């Protein structure tokens, strides 16, 4: 008889790192990211037996984004942005890069949840418009609209990225 706990544990350990990275970008806070991923994993665990074979990862990711952008989710903790970047060294760790990352995070947090989710899906997860629409359960037109508006706002906050946003919708 299959051991669901063992199966799920292995699944969670394999997928949690990538989920947390995306969750961090869409929440802007490490604790909120952990809370979000944990809840998405919990829902996946509950649905484990009825998720189609091989789709647990997609299911969890979809739940995670829906939890974040859902329109009547009660929030225990308001979103917040810490004004410092973690001490952990990153690829670009010069003062200029750190300042840029902080600016990016602030710009991301200035977007609506839906816009942020679209940006993360499109430009962090490299999903195309159709995949993004499928994950967020909206039309491709909605994704394009949110992408356009999000990039417009990012362009204002980050003039140096202006070139990168041309034709990206």
């Amino acid at each position: 008889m299959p051991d669901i706990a063992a199966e799920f544990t292995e699944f969670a350990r394999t997928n949690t790192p990538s989920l947390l990275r995306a969750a961090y970008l869409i929440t802007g806070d490490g604790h909120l990211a952990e809370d979000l991923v944990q809840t998405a994993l919990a829902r996946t665990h509950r649905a484990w037996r009825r998720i189609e074979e091989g789709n647990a990862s997609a299911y969890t990711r979809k739940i995670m984004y829906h939890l974040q952008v859902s329109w009547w989710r009660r929030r225990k903790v308001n979103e917040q942005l810490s004004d410092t970047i973690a001490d952990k060294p990153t690829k670009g760790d010069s003062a200029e890069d750190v300042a840029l990352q902080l600016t990016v995070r602030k710009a991301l947090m200035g977007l609506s949840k839906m816009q942020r989710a679209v940006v993360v899906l499109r430009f962090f997860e490299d999903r195309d418009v159709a995949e993004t629409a499928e994950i967020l359960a909206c039309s491709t037109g909605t994704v394009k609209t949110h992408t356009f508006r999000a990039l417009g706002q990012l362009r204002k906050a980050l003039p140096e990225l202006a070139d990168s946003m041309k034709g990206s919708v």
Partner: protein
Amino acid sequence: MSTERLRDILRNSADEMDAVDLAASAMKQSRQMTVRRAAVGATLAVALLAGGIFGAANFWKGPGGGDVDVAESASPSVSATTSASPAPSGSQRAGEAAPPKEHIEGTFYYVTSSALMSWTPGSAPRTLFTAGSSDDDILGTANVSPDGRYAAWNNMKGKLRLLDLNSGDVRDLMDIPTSEYCFDPAWTSDGRILTHKEQGGRAGLYDIDARSFTELPMVMQGCHPRIVGSTAYVIGGGVDKISGYDLGTGEVTTQVSTVVGSRRALDITAAFAGPSGLIFAVTTNDADGTRGDVGRGLVGDSLFELRGNKCVDLDVESMDGGFGAQNGLMVLRQKTGGGHRVVLQGGDGVPIETLDEPDGLGEAYAIAYNP
């Protein structure tokens, strides 16, 4: 600078997040959710049982006895993406609590220009009635009873008509104003029909069993009534207002603006008790756009929640019809690329199950859902 720069910056930002093991805490949370849901389900079952006994003994005026077909739905629709993770098993571990039932059950009802249709997940759509004449305004006025046994609509030659969905029999119930597009028959929870005899006259309830019409103490100022509990809500009673009339006293108990942000509700397509309050599924246009006419709006593109004495737009994406609640959960219809799907959502707004509608309903409008 290319989009790669944006990607690099996002990746660098994401690198700030340390990996932690959430498997154990997620399973713990999952079990807590199961226990909570089971407790809520048990409470609801007790309340429904008590309510059913009380209602049957005191208030039920409907036909009774009709079985409502309930079919198991399909598995949740989750698109496939590649995953190297282990596949979930199809069986249940011994000793583990069975998960709560969260499938979309019940029957959905639709109208087209001339037909009334139904769809129960797991089966093909059925045509319940096809109008032989344009006088039977199915599209504009047909509504289904809460027990799914009857449908009523306005015949434009001045008749309120009733279809028995089990037998297919159609009969005229009473005379109503001719060309009555504004006041489509609304069902009470106990199976009576809210309608009126004369244009601009008092509203009243038609009792199917007693075959009698009892006037209520009010003229309802507005169109397309929708009933929740003992209150009928109409669009009207003032410019851009939703008015709620107590069906017992006739008093206006609610009057709220339909203008929310840049949207204005033209018609209420459905009203129901949502997880956190009364919800109107409404057809809207821009706040500064033209107003609607007496024909009912069937699009149901927005959900307005009543909070205190104002409506709040719940800002649902791609909505194309809101139906109602099922044990504290909510069922909505949404557009997809090639058609529609129905979505069962929890109180936190998270989709629990999504079912794509079958072919044949793409051109139809959803009007009702019976759990």
